[in-house]
């Protein structure tokens, strides 16, 4: 057997790390996946290469996050290996050694936002964003698409790229009215400088293969086609599976493999997925085979019964309407963009963010400079009930002179007596700086 596409695999099950003994994110999570992957002999396939992960550095983390109080406190070694695993795959793909790759790592990362006060939805740092920003820094990659197929809305990734027009973020997930984190509606389309670069497709409970593939064909693939990314990343959560204990979808291993084949991501990253026996072993094998361009037609769950998980006609109609609505709304982005350019220079939003895993509540006041020439400088005044109060300023990677000037003026003028810490993330000069009293 020989892979049609040279495929890299980082398999890091972190068999000695758990959030707590019986938490879904525990040592056992990838045990049966390992059994299946080893038994299938996947790692022996010609053209499939197993890579050893390294550890992401504080510098890699701070290119994306403002960690409160610092990266060492909000991460464990396991988080750094998960991010490092993504980087190892990415290095091999961008270095030209491989066509594509899969970082099968844990814990996940897509609920981690720009500011990190602790763990949200089992995530501490955003492993995809850390990888993407590393790639932009190391290889000069510009346009990147992240397609999040985890069952939960990838609100962390959305938050990080909300204002960035060069990063297309598409999330397919179970409707936020029925599942954590409760966001990801069609109307969430990005900040004033990046309208349309965020795409959310909420799906009703009970969506099965048919629904997922419809959304791929009608929405995801055409938008990707239009965006023309240099790189496609798949946040490959596996909790849409019919046997997942914490969601209500009807997706299956065959469906995941087909979706992967359609999407053809350069790099897939494992996110959630907690049916560790009934789903993960089969979904992961299907995904690996599909990535490598190999026959996956024999991959199915032992209890797979297409009749039992057939999609309700009502669910199909709902999905079709959602697609229509989304495509219509996208038509309005250009007008909205023109309107906002004619409006005030600064746009504000206030938010409350709940860290379910860490039990922290954060209040944010965010301000972005509406900019004709770049992604716009952003400031976030963040106050958590842990007592930390920080000011985070981010100058975008391809900032215009005015936004650079604005960012540094905010940083210089901020009064360190008012905050525990004032952070500056200057994407243009790849610099991270803090000031304290």
């Amino acid at each position, binding site marked *: *057997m020989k892979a049609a596409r040279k495929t890299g695999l980082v*398999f*890091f*099950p*972190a*068999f*000695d*790390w758990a959030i707590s*003994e*019986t938490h879904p994110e*525990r*040592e*056992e999570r990838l*045990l*049966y996946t*390992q*059994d*299946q992957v*080893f*038994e*299938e*002999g*996947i790692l*022996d396939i010609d053209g499939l290469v*197993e*890579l*050893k*992960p390294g*550890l992401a550095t504080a510098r890699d983390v701070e290119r994306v996050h403002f960690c409160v109080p610092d990266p060492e406190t909000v991460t464990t*070694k*396991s988080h750094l*290996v998960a991010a490092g695993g993504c980087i190892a795959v990415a290095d091999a793909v961008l270095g030209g050694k491989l066509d594509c790759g899969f970082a099968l790592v844990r814990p996940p990362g897509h609920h981690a936002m720009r500011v990190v006060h602790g763990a949200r939805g089992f995530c501490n740092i955003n492993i995809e964003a850390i990888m993407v920003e590393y790639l932009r820094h190391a290889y000069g990659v510009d346009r990147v698409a992240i397609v999040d197929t985890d069952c939960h809305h990838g609100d962390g990734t959305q938050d990080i790229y909300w204002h960035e027009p060069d990063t297309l973020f598409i999330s397919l997930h179970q409707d936020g009215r029925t599942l954590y984190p409760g966001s990801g509606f069609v109307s969430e389309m990005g900040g004033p400088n990046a309208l349309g670069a965020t795409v959310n497709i909420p799906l009703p409970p009970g969506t099965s293969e048919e629904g997922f593939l419809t959304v791929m064909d009608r929405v995801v693939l055409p938008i990707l086609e239009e965006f023309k990314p240099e790189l496609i990343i798949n946040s490959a959560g596996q909790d849409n599976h019919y046997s997942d*204990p914490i969601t209500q979808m009807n997706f299956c291993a065959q469906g995941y493999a087909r979706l992967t084949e359609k999407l053809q991501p350069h790099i897939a990253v494992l996110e959630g997925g907690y049916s560790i*026996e009934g789903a993960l*072993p*089969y979904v992961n*094998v299907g995904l690996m*085979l599909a990535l490598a361009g*190999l*026959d996956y*037609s*024999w*991959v*199915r*769950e*032992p209890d*797979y019964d297409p009749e039992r998980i057939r999609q309700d006609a009502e669910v199909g109609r709902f999905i079709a309407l959602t697609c229509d609505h989304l495509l219509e709304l996208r038509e309005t982005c250009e007008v909205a963009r023109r309107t906002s350019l004619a409006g005030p220079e600064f746009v504000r939003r206030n938010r409350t963010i709940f860290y379910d895993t860490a039990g922290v509540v954060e209040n944010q006041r965010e301000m972005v400079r509406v900019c004709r020439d770049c992604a716009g400088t952003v400031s976030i005044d963040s106050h958590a009930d842990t007592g930390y109060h920080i000011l985070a300023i981010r100058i975008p990677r391809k900032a215009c002179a005015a936004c650079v000037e604005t960012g540094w003026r905010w940083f210089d003028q901020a009064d360190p007596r008012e905050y525990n810490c004032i952070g500056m993330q200057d994407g243009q000069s790849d610099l991270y700086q803090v000031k304290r009293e």
Partner: protein
Amino acid sequence: MLGLDVGGTHTDVVVIHGKEVARKAKILTNQDNLLESVLCGMLEATAGIEPRLIQRVVVSTTLATNAIVEGRLEPVGMVVASGPGVNPASFAIDDHFYPVRGAIDHRGREIAPLRDEEIRDVGRILKAAGIRHVALVGKFSTRNPGHELRMRDLLADGFDTVAMGHQVSGQLNFPRRIATAYLNAAVAPISRRFYEAVQRSMERQGFRVPLEILKADGGTMAQQRSLQYAVETILSGPAASVMGTVAFADPAKEEVVLDIGGTTTDIAILVNGVPLLERVGISIGGYRTLVRALRSHSIGVGGDSWVRVESGALKVGPERKGRAVAYGGPEPTPTDALIALGAETSGHRQRAVDGIQRLGFQLGKGVRDTAEMIVSKTGSLILGGIEHLVREVNSQPVYTIHQLLEGKRVDPRDLILIGAPAKELASRLGAASGWQVRVAPDHEVANAIGAAVARTTCEVTVVADTALGYVSAPEEGYRAAIDRNATEEEIVKLALTLLWNKALRLGADEDDLTMEILEAQQFNMVKGFHRVGRSIRVRAQVKPGLIKTYREIAA
């Protein structure tokens, strides 16, 4: 103690008395009649020695290896129960490959039953085709061999050899299990005929000890066992050589063993005097197997490598055109360069000089400079091979944070050389690498020494699933009920007991068992936020090493 290694060119034999090599013999191998090579070698080395004084006879041959590499295998009917996953058609070895219904999952639960009638039908088809050997393999049969055993019961009558997947290894890897079981069945008849003939001849000569056979992992097994595990004897040659250096190794160092042959150089690593093993199993003739083996890296450069000038650049190997010019060969070789430099004194020196000079003309250099270039190029190819192996060992994936952060890296700085041009190359490799280089004593028969003094080795894998209430080691035919609260400690103890028994069955000496735990993992199995049991996995081995009597004398 008598050790004999049949190689591609030579058959080497030693008789060891105490720690001394009392006799050594090197005869040309007759590839068409390996039996003759074995018997002649034995007779030559033991001439004048009373046969009953020989306490141990270990043989390593290329029999199984040659049969596989040359494709001289008897046809084997493969019956394969795969269940869901990778399409089993991609594992087909030849036309006698029959995927059947029936499936077991990763925890050893039956998810689809075997159909007896389907198996009987396959049996009838195979018999009609004149097939006499079958291999029966199920996915996850190392977690539950039930389907393989049932297939055996249904097919046992009427086939000469019945190999089962769960017997060849406890490791998970279905495609390799298929290949290994296939090879085991395919070489079984050849192996059986051969070793029985050797044993009979030994008896006629008055040898009173059971024959032992060297395996690819540098350990021995009784000839009786090889009837069932013929495949384990493949590629024992490189293992023999490495084992022949162990007595000479530094027990507190990491060392590289270089076996420089005519066509290739084999590279292995000793850590504190113990050779490193392959991660999963050895590959041979395009088959990836689960056969335990010493880890070695072979590169296409040796004493007889073809040296030529291509587009103005000197090239060494990987092809071999024949022997050195100094010995009447057609093309210059690194050996000629050594002879021309006066480092080696045998052979026809003038011919070597002439050969090197021809190359020198093309390079615009004198004989001496050209010969130096060839030797240094050969050395750098070998050092590159060492670097490759070390890098590969160190980039081996790990699955825990502890191993990733604390994982031991090998960083050898010492070299042990064996093989024909070992002495002549030693100082040059030392100068080029800055490493300490030693040539093993009796290095030209290190392989035979290795065979003579290697101890019995083996491995067991034990898996306990306390939620399902069983513990099993299918390789050993062991399965028992287990308490929900069983611990890793108990399973480790059980693994060591099973290992002990297995080693004794293989012919090990009771007070010569150095056992170690290779892996021990314990996972809580959780359902709905409650612990329902534990999954415990333990792998234990008898380390490759030297038999105790020799170890003590040598020390």
